[in-house]
């Protein structure tokens, strides 16, 4: 009830206003109090957009009443990945605490500006941490009283866990030895840029042309990433975690992610699939949510990568072998000895041991004349194991693992 406390009288230019009109008018003044036009064109467009939107829904009154006065003078703008962002803190007048931050974003080649109000009651710890950061930068101290942590209802469908791990080495500088792996976790809310559940705290502004519709905004809020609109919450969770694993993994998986993730893929679940995963150009399907992991995703994305390197060609036994081999190199890179297609073989047989030696050789030296000489031998072994699955596929003409070689070159392996 900021406004009712602040503005007791309400007479403007000898015109008596109703209480309602008066509050709206004062709210607009408060909203613009710190705003100096023509300093920043993006900011001008935002302010004009908000005022236009205010005509229809009175958002400025709500904003001022709930949060107070925007501090336009200490806004922050940023442009990343062609997305313009403007952050404006809001404070109660005569207070030394910020109450919220307004975030405006405008993707490249779009007139639509999305806004969100980030406040301290947000469930996402990233948001509240960000507010604490703004508060400290602006006022030189944290919130008073300090932020408290409250248990929240289970929101598993919209949470994800971000993990960061470090290998800890101990000893003297010259003889450091690996000691243990230390990991930290952050549980954050999934981004829902256009959510409507916060009572007017988010939405879109009219475009500069003034005729934009309120219904704009990309579904799923995942611009550039795969279309995953058909996935349920479990599948989305697993897909996001698989993506994080691969993006935070070694160069091998990062390279595949960088090359394929933002190429208009569609990822879905199809329970009638005959295998755990399948790929056709631009489309990846999994049999169920639980069959989505870093390994399965990497295998299917590698097929997409093969198409990028070789052009779209029919699937062959050789292209399958290359995809399985690539996943084995990835596993070897992350110290996982459970290589893929040999898992069902006797793990202490000469075949499995020799295969691991071969993988290690490629991992250490890249493809050389000597290990390439055994490529056909291992392809034949692979087909002995996978004959029932891939026996009907054409063998293929290209026994050169061009896609893997590409990745190894990128990664300087």
């Amino acid at each position, binding site marked *: 009830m900021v406004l009712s406390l602040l503005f007791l009288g309400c007479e403007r230019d000898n015109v008596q206003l109703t209480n309602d009109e008066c509050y709206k008018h004062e709210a607009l003044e408060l909203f613009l109090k710190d705003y100096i036009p023509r300093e920043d064109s993006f900011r001008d467009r935002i302010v004009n957009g908000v005022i236009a939107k205010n005509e229809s829904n009175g958002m400025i009154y709500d904003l001022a009443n709930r949060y107070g006065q925007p501090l336009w003078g200490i806004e922050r703008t940023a442009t990343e990945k062609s997305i313009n962002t403007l952050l404006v803190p809001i404070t109660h007048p005569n207070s030394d605490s910020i109450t919220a931050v307004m975030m405006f974003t405008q993707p490249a080649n779009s007139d639509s500006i999305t806004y969100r109000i980030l406040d301290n009651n947000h469930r996402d710890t990233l948001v509240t941490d960000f507010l604490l950061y703004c508060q400290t930068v602006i006022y030189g101290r944290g919130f008073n009283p300090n932020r408290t942590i409250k248990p929240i209802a289970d929101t598993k469908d919209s949470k994800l*866990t971000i*993990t960061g*791990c470090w*290998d800890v080495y101990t000893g003297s500088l010259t003889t450091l*030895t*690996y*000691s*243990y*792996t230390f*990991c930290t*976790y952050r549980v954050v809310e999934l981004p829902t840029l256009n959510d409507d559940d916060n009572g007017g705290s988010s939405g879109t502004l009219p475009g500069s042309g003034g005729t934009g519709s309120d219904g704009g905004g990309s579904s799923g809020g995942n611009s550039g990433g795969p279309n995953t609109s058909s996935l349920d919450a*479990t599948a989305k*969770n*697993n897909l996001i*975690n*698989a993506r*994080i*694993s691969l993006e935070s993994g070694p160069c091998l998986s990062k390279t595949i992610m960088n090359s394929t993730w933002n190429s208009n893929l569609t990822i879905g679940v199809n329970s009638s699939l*005959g*295998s*755990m*995963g399948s790929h056709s150009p631009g489309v990846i399907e999994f*049999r169920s*949510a*639980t*069959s*989505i*992991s*870093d*390994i*399965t995703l990497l*295998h299917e994305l590698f097929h997409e990568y093969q198409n990028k390197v070789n052009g779209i060609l029919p699937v062959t036994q050789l292209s399958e072998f290359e995809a399985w081999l690539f*996943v084995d190199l990835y596993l070897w890179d*992350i*110290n*996982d*000895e*459970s290589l*893929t*297609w040999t*898992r*069902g*073989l*006797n*793990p*202490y*047989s*000469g075949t*499995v*041991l*020799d295969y691991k*030696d071969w993988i290690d050789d490629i991992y250490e030296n890249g493809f050389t004349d000597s290990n390439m000489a055994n490529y056909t031998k291992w392809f034949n072994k692979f087909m002995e194991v*996978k004959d*029932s*699955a*891939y026996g009907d596929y054409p063998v293929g003409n290209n026994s050169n693992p061009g896609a893997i070689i590409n990745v190894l070159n990128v990664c300087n392996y």
Partner: protein
Amino acid sequence: MKRYFLNINKFLLRILGIILLTIIFQGICYSQDSKEFQVKGKKGVLNCTESKSKNRTIYSNANNKKNLSEDYKTDDPELELSFLGFYISTYDSFLNAFRKTFSESRIEELAKHKEKIQIGFSLNQGGEHLGMGFVLNYGTNITPDEILTLEENLLKMVSFIPLQKFEYKLLTSYSIRTDFDEIRRGDITRLKKMEANQRERAKLFVIE
């Protein structure tokens, strides 16, 4: 002139003979590079395959079930890709199985000999032991009885916990490689990393 020609011919024949014998000898050596035999210990019989050129000796219990793959056939070509694998009950349990099998001085001795060991476990999707094998240096100092005792202790002390309840029948495996210097120091780097990865994976994916 003719005599001279014949002499050259004899000389050539001798060289060809030597080359031929060398090739045959090498062929024999190569075919004998990998040798299979059985060794008996107090607690059982081990199958053994050794290869000098690959510097390895593979031991496995003669009682291990053969042709396991027959029981685990699947039509799904990518079934194993969606299996997230295992982590072992505790990292220490693996070390303790070694410490129960080998005395401290014996571990020191084997570390001095630069003995390496790789253990392969055949498991099903639930983590049930189906077989175990040991890969050691060629000409290893480790005795068959020590291997059989280690196998016994590993079976008792180490269990494998699958990351997910996998609803399909699957034959799979878990491998650990180390050397006796790491065992002496109680620090098996690769195993630690592998276990850390698996525990991460268990937290990341919804697997019910």
